[in-house]
């Protein structure tokens, strides 16, 4: 097998406001034809920069040294991408190497048809008649699994689902059948079930079209599923490189070991849940539930006569004091809507939802306000959950000031310091601004804020999905500790079954606004009854190539059955 691309001693640094920053330092990698090389690492490790260098897509502020030897499709000639002129670079892009982007919805031009955008790639390299170009576009759409390509070729991007959009992005990369595809986090933005299909498609590219694929990801499950060889990057350097099986079986670099340990493995959490259940007091079941939903319906009103959108249609569940209910579902399943309804951010339109003994359907803000001190909320995006112009101490002191526990932020500072200690953040961080903290640190501060008034109920809306794997592990540990210590009831919302499994006593699975399955961790993960839950479980990749191979077979069987 001839090498498609050979990166020798690559170095890339950027000019930022705080001076020059070196993102990639002395990296050497090789990709053979028909082989998938996964580059894995946390954000800031330089993996995306390395990938973009192969296509010369770095912004002007970047300077590179070293060499990236890329051979053309037929393997007849080689060129060093870094020293290519703009014109030569253009000739290489699309024909010898192509890229698949992370966000499918923003990688397609909203105002042009998908057909036109595919033809653009063809027209940039070959002088081909529009009729033939259109035919080629239809053919490539068919190959990536878009139904009824003859008509869909003239549709616009917003008329496709997330998964279909990613298929089109891949089609655009394949149309000139390049020697190498660089896929930058191709499935991160997709739901788990759709992710599995896209990984299959990429596998076909490798097997049927014999292309080399450079897969950039931070998700070890995906690596286990698709990768032949793996390179682990940390702080701009390649700390370890090996074939998939040996890397997972016997990692050598400490960083790799730590990374693998931090990745949640679905099913491992059920043990601790059973042990927690045992410690429950006998009359626990009869205690008044903190949250009780019966036939809960939430409809978002449409604009100017367009029909409303029903986000939640008839859901029943219960959260008892001190219990963690895991709410799992893909995007559009209504899980966040339920969380917001409990917190009084979204109006309940049907059925009943009793929170701390208070009926939320037709609630009036004045009546509900005193109850707010008994509810805490942790948001998903650490970057925007803090007012950028206030210091961390002021933000955490906000609940204390609002509910009169302290006259002003300064008076509350002692209590704030205690809270920061509780979430393992040094007191000195109180004087910093939110943007001076890392994602993980900010999420801890957000936890501190939500616990300021020792609420009885804490709603966490995908608190760790925006964090790196290692940081996520520690935040989840902290969350469990705090839950044991404060004993609050909690609704933990997530799209990742593995994460929910670690914390939840009971798990509820949502699908398009209705509850398809509910039970303890063992029941739901061990023996799922509902077909959707089964498919959801099967398509979740586990960080072990061997086990992942069996699960792939099981998923294919499930798909034929349905």
């Amino acid at each position, binding site marked *: 097998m001839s090498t498609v691309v050979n990166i020798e001693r690559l170095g890339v640094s950027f000019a930022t406001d705080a001076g020059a920053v070196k993102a990639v330092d002395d990296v050497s990698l090789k990709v053979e034809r028909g082989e998938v090389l996964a580059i894995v690492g946390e954000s800031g490790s330089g993996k995306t920069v390395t990938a973009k260098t192969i296509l010369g897509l770095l912004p002007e502020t970047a300077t590179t040294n070293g060499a990236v030897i890329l051979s053309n499709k037929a393997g007849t000639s080689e060129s060093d991408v870094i020293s290519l002129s703009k014109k030569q670079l253009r000739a290489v892009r699309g024909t010898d190497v192509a890229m698949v982007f992370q966000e499918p919805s923003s990688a397609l031009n909203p105002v042009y048809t998908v057909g036109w955008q595919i033809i653009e790639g063809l027209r940039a390299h070959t002088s081909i008649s529009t009729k033939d170009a259109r035919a080629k576009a239809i053919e490539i759409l068919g190959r990536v699994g878009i139904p009824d390509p003859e008509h869909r070729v003239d549709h616009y991007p917003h008329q496709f689902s997330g998964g279909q959009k990613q298929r089109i992005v891949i089609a655009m990369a394949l149309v000139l059948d390049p020697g190498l595809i660089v896929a930058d986090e191709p499935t991160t933005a997709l739901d788990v079930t759709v992710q599995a299909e896209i990984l299959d498609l990429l596998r076909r590219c490798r097997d049927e079209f014999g292309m080399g694929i450079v897969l950039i990801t931070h998700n070890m499950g995906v690596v286990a599923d698709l990768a032949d060889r793996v390179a682990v990057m940390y702080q701009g350097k390649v700390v370890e490189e090996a074939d998939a099986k040996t890397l997972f079986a016997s990692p050598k670099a400490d960083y790799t070991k730590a990374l693998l340990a931090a990745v949640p493995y679905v099913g491992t959490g059920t043990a601790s849940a059973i042990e927690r259940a045992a410690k429950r007091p006998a009359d626990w079941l009869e205690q008044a539930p903190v949250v009780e939903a019966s036939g809960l319906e939430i409809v978002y009103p449409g604009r100017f006569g367009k029909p409303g959108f029903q986000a939640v249609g008839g859901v029943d569940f219960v959260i008892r004091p001190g219990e963690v209910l895991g709410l799992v579902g893909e995007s559009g399943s209504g899980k966040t809507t339920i969380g917001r309804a409990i917190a*009084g951010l979204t109006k309940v339109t049907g059925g009943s939802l009793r929170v701390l003994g208070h009926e939320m359907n037709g609630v009036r803000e004045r009546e509900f306000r005193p109850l707010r001190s008994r509810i805490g909320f942790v948001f998903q995006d650490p970057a925007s959950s803090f007012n950028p112009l206030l210091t961390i101490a002021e933000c955490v002191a906000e609940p204390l000031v609002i509910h009169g526990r302290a006259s002003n932020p300064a008076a509350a500072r002692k209590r704030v310091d205690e809270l920061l200690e509780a979430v393992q953040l040094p007191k000195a961080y109180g004087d910093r601004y939110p943007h001076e903290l890392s994602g993980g640190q900010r999420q801890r501060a957000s936890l501190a804020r939500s616990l300021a008034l020792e609420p009885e109920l804490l709603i966490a809306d995908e608190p760790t999905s925006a964090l790196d794997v290692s940081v996520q592990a520690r935040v989840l540990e902290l969350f469990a500790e705090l839950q044991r210590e404060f004993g609050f009831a909690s609704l933990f919302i997530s799209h990742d079954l593995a994460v929910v499994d670690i914390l939840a006593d009971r798990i509820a699975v949502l699908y398009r606004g209705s509850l398809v399955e509910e039970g303890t961790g063992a029941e739901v993960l061990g023996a799922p009854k509902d077909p959707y839950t089964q498919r959801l479980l099967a398509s979740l990749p586990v960080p072990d190539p061997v086990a992942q191979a069996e699960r792939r077979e099981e998923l294919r069987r499930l798909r034929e059955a349905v």
Partner: protein
Amino acid sequence: MSTDTVIQPPRRRLRDRLPVVHQLRQSVGLQRGMLVAGLVLTGLFVLVAIFAPLIAPFGFAQLRDLEGPFGSQQPPSADHLFGTTVGGYDVLSRVLWGAQTALYVIVIAVILSLFAGVLLGLVSGYFGGWLDRVLVVVCDAIYAFPSLLLAIVMAIVISGGQSNLWGGVFAAAISITVVFIPQYFRVIRAETVRIKAEAYVESAKVLGASNGRVMFRHVLRNATRTLPLIFTLNASEAILTLAGLGFLGFGIEPTAAAEWGYDLNKALSDVSSGIWWTALYPGLAIVLVVLGITLVGESLNDLADPRLRGRRRVAQASGTVAETSVVPGGTLTAGPGGLGGLEDGESFDEHGIGVRS
């Protein structure tokens, strides 16, 4: 294990926190050139405006000095560097004093429209509902409103027969204000709607903060980050509108204050008779000041928006390696002053006002 080492970020020196100085150090290449040029011109304008009484050789309405009257339409000479106008005033003094009048009008016009516009935009954006729709309709209606009519009404109602400096300045300022309020309203409303959906505002609501507290403590301060840009654009439009009103004869009475638009109007017939200096200097003054202010506004807009901001090309692969990259969220995105900027905010669109074209 990559533990979170405690890093003590440099306390941001006060010098860094001043708005323009901070941007100045950030800017690079051509953008720095434009910002510097803009600042020089604007600084000059403000200095001249403040020290006009000292710099100007004569009073703005002075017709004669010890040796007798200046005479009308005298060409530039030793004691009248810019010559004299048809009315016998010294052009140089009128230009210098004119800066003072222009500064008064800018400050008053912007202050009047700033508060009303921002508050209306905040409330309308935050509460939405029918109040929002009504205010939007009224704002659209204002665009078609002939600000000239308001200039006449204000000229009468305010000065009430007197045409002193303040009467004239307020008349011009108020007629400009009505057109500026919708501009502030639109931008702040869009920002409020955007910020209202941010997590930290929703968290404040969940915590049970009152609407007033949420609006003023959280939303307002973040929504007003784009104000320096709007302030500069309105300042330049204030001058152009004042000149327009002056041209149509509704400027400020010459013995009450020196006003460029008024002098330019008077100078039109001179120019067709070959007397160029009475028109050239006030015209140049208007153009240079508006150029200066707009350059500053445009550069501020570019610097606030990371996409538009150029960065120094770093020397060959230099710079400290991993230290800063430990901060997850990567080195490419973070930077002092946060991500912010106008990426998704409504790009500030231009509307001319009736009297300017």
